[in-house]
């Protein structure tokens, strides 16, 4: 349900950030869109929440949002977790914009670690919160070296990591932040979304923007960009299909969270995307 916009609190500029900072971030975003997958440095501002809670995403949202926008914020797919609720309320207060939990109604979706199950549409903008933007970081600690590797498309080390996965686990065990090649050029960290969501990046009709607040980097996927998940010929990329169905809506198609619900260790699986799950329940009730 879309919340009606309230009057923004006095004393704040629209959407909290000053206009100069917003312009600076928008310039960075334009550059990021122009070079898909390339990490653009920007002057990250201090925001009223700690690093690691979405300072990058919140700055991107603040620089883009207009009074007409409808904002949805999810955290691991859920609209009702502390982080998601806080960020949504923050923008309601400092920008007076309308918010929603429905993917279809939203013009901007700020997300931590998921892409909604409901297919995105042209004109929608996804804003990802990114902890570590550099996909090569875990194998190459030097920033100058990774910058050079990107500049020369020298991505052999990325496969070294996947090779190690197969050595240790017998299959590519990277199940989130799974590296992708964008537009045949840059290797990009899609932020810690599950690899289940990786295929949704490919040729998405929505604009995808990534903001890393602590690391001060922006990157982007323009709509309809080719995104290929890295793999080996004999160990191709594949997504894990859930073995169970959602305990609430019965979906076998969506990404499920596993919950332990009592002291006896009983497990239940439920959709991580709460909006998708509730929509299915409502549709079932309407049909009955």
């Amino acid at each position, binding site marked *: 349900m879309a919340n009606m916009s309230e009057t923004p609190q006095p004393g704040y500029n629209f959407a909290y950030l000053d206009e100069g900072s917003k312009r600076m971030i928008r310039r960075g975003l334009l550059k990021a869109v122009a070079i898909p997958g390339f990490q653009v440095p920007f002057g990250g501002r201090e925001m009223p929440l700690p690093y690691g809670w979405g300072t990058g995403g919140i700055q991107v949202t603040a620089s883009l949002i207009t009074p007409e926008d409808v904002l949805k914020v999810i955290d691991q797919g859920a609209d009702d977790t502390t982080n998601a609720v806080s960020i949504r309320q923050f923008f309601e207060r400092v920008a007076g914009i309308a918010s929603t939990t429905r993917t279809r109604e939203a013009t901007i979706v700020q997300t931590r670690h998921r892409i909604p199950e409901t297919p995105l549409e042209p004109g929608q903008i996804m804003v990802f919160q990114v902890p570590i933007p550099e996909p090569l970081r875990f194998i190459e600690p030097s920033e100058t070296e990774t910058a050079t590797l990107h500049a020369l498309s020298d991505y052999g*080390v990325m496969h070294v990591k996947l090779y190690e996965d197969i050595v240790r686990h017998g299959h590519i065990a990277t199940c989130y932040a799974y590296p992708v090649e964008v537009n045949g050029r840059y290797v990009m960290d899609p932020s810690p979304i599950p690899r289940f969501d990786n295929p949704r990046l490919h040729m998405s009709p929505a604009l995808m923007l990534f903001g890393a607040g602590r690391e001060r980097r922006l990157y982007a996927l323009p709509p309809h960009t080719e995104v290929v998940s890295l793999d080996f010929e004999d160990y191709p990329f594949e997504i894990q299909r859930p073995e169970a169905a959602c305990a609430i809506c019965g979906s076998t198609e969506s990404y499920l969270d596993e919950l332990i619900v009592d002291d006896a260790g009983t497990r239940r699986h439920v959709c991580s995307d709460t909006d998708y799950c509730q929509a299915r329940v409502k549709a079932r009730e309407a049909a009955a």
Partner: protein
Amino acid sequence: MNVRLRDAQPGAASQLEVPARALSGEKARPLLQVDDVCRLFGPEQGCQEVSFTLYPGEVLGLVGESGSGKSTLLSTLSGRLPPDRGRVRYRDGADWLDLYAAGEGRRRALLRTQWGFVEQNPRDGLRMSVSAGANIGERLMAQGARHYGRLRQCALEWLRHVEIDAARIDDTPETFSGGMRQRLQIARNLVSGPRLVFMDEPTGGLDVSVQARILDLLRNLVREFDLSVILVTHDLAVARLLADRLMVMRRSRIVESGLTDQILDDPQHPYTQLLVSSILQV
């Protein structure tokens, strides 16, 4: 050859040209041409006035005391440290490539395909946190190999070449001994079939029995794969065993060069004489 040959015996120069020139075809054409390379950090610190030619299949030893500029020269030759003056050219098939005039992309591609670099400390040349197999496969993956099974086959084959037990393929170099690490580093460099390998004290810091084993291995690999090697060492015994030709460095300059046996048995420059006479006799 353009080597600054022993000043004392100008006649020796023509004799020294024989080993390379006598060969025909591909082997008669130089692989690396170094013209008046200079890289100085202070007066006589670094290297200067260095010119020489390296032929395919040749092992060139670079000896001298510490601080004489051996490692600086090696870095300059191997594309890691641009010289203040002079140029380094490498023959890639029929074309000559000016190392520092070429772009960084080309230089890096060369370094990990046709060239190799064996560091003195294997920690610098290996990825210590990934398995031996991944260390060997990295160059191939950088060249676009995307088949896990074949990468593994290749890694096993190279472990055999450098005499490491195949069962260790999934262990990280952290668990290897110093000698094994050095052998793994050699395998990691040779897997791409390089033509030219740079070695900076490959046996430094290893105990004597391990040193002997590595030298033996290197000698066999150089023969088997017909490698050209530029080898920095301060150990004349290593030079005697591996090198066809020696250059003696002192205070940033090459003071004497020639065939290894000739230099070690009949040193002409006072510094070389001192160096040779200072070998400990047991």
